[in-house]
């Protein structure tokens, strides 16, 4: 735009639209996420939040509009290509490799990032640097003690964190978490929120998450975007959003603490 010194936003979505049958699930959505922002996307059920994530990460192809990552168009690319460009995503319904150990779950992601996956002869676990890195990532999510366990046998909260770890192993610049707290007990939530904030700070990530838990959303976000029925209703600081009439009517229905 005017100031050529500012780097392009990490993620920019322009007039993004997607319809299923006759229903517009994503309706002309536009926003830009600056580097380093910790932001949330909220909205009532069926607002199209996960669909938005799917459009950004390549699982769905938009009917109209563009998605730009660091100034480069990525709409239409495959999820694998987009992941390689630097977007890591965690899933609402836990998406891990269940009959593999916790370590193997993260290790394959590290090896993929390092483009070592065509190697046929050496044991994967013999790649010392990759293994060390995988364990470090597990440690940032407090999972390193369970490295040898089967992912499918972990309690739900650990599986959700493993899901995040697999995404982090890609060393992404943009991390997208879809309801990272879903199904967790209050204690687990607090732990996980702290972990997420710590990781965001230490790795200087841009982090975007979908959440329903308003304490979490208003607790850590710098910026909030509200989706309702496929439309971007409003965006702003937590304070602004909590006072926004439309948001309150559409979604919250009662007063909330800031």
């Amino acid at each position: 735009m005017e100031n050529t010194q500012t780097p392009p936003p990490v993620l920019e979505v322009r007039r993004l639209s997607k319809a299923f049958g006759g229903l517009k699930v994503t309706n002309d959505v536009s926003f830009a996420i600056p580097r380093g922002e910790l932001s949330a996307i909220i909205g009532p059920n069926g607002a199209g939040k996960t669909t938005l994530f799917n459009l950004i990460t390549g699982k769905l192809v938009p009917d109209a509009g563009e998605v730009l990552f660091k100034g480069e168009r990525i709409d239409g690319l495959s999820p694998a290509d987009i992941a390689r460009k630097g977007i890591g995503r965690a899933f609402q319904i836990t998406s891990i490799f269940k009959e593999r150990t916790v370590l193997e779950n993260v290790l394959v992601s590290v090896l993929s990032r390092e483009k070592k996956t065509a190697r046929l002869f050496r044991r994967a676990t013999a790649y010392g640097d990759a293994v060390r890195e995988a364990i470090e990532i597990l440690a940032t999510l407090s999972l390193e003690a369970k490295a040898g366990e089967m992912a499918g046998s972990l309690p739900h909260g650990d599986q959700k964190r493993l899901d995040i770890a697999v995404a982090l192993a890609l060393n992404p610049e943009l991390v997208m978490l879809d309801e990272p707290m879903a199904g967790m007990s209050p204690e687990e939530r607090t732990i996980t929120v702290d972990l997420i904030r710590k990781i965001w700070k230490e790795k200087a990530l841009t982090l975007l998450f979908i959440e329903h838990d308003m304490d979490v959303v208003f607790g850590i976000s710098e910026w909030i975007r509200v989706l309702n029925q496929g439309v971007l209703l409003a965006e702003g600081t937590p304070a602004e959003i909590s006072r926004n009439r439309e948001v309150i009517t559409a979604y919250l229905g009662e007063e909330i603490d800031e």
Partner: protein
Amino acid sequence: MGAKRRREEWVQWAVALALFAVVPLLGKRGFVNMGNEILVMGLFAMGFNLLYGVTGMLSFGQAAYYGVGAYTVGLLLSKGVASFWVALPATMVVGGALALVLGPLCIRLSGVYFTMLTLAFAEMVWGIVFKWYDFTGGDNGIQGIPMPEALHGPLRYYYFTLAVVFASFWLIRRIVDSPFGAVLQSIRENPERTGFIGVKVRRYQLAAMVLSGVFAALAGGLFAGYQHSIHPDMLHWTKSGEVILMSILGGVSSFFGPLMGAAVIVFIEDMIGKYTEFWEIWIGGIMLAIVIFFPRGVIGTFDTWITRWRNHGKHADTAARP
């Protein structure tokens, strides 16, 4: 992970190798023959399991590669075009090439449709071999395939097969443990997530098909050498079914499972063959029983029972693991 499991594995390998090495010393020609067949089918099954147990792709058409491998050896040798030492490695090239042609077509669809496509294209290959009388000998097949002097006699051929097969097992093991193998297993567990970690899933699925085809063709070539003949039955869909049965009987998630399954099935088929021509109903019955009562494979299920019994005995205060 770790040294203990590594040592346990070495023991398994040593025991397996020793068992097979000792068979001829038992004196009976019949044992050597059966051992040879088990080795060949074991290789075929292990190659199949690379696709099914490791990558999660159920192919019902591996017989095409097995048969094409057998015919490569059979045709090259009977027409005097090449020696066995050239023909056998050639099987791997031919098997891989066929997979490169058929694979991309089959991978276009997933799930049951993938399975059915593998069957359909295998039937097509069988049909071509069956009808191309002038080239392949059609329904008669080709008999009297000459073997090199160095491999004359069942004993020599047996040990040759043993060496080739176990070398292939070692290769397969390396592949499964490698980063490439880790990706294949991720694809089995969660193909969508594997894409999201930056992997071009289809490419790896095709690679798995090629590797599986290579080992199947090698097994076919070894069988042609053992049998001194080739026949379209080697490409018949029941051959594809047989190798699936061997893998699920032995257990698809254990490395030597398919080999053990091969041993059991070869033995059973031999027994059944002596008493009745109606072998399909027995094989079908065994498969039905496995599917309903032993979904983890018979050997896999016994393994679980034994582990549970051991754990129950040792750690009565800890909860049993599923």
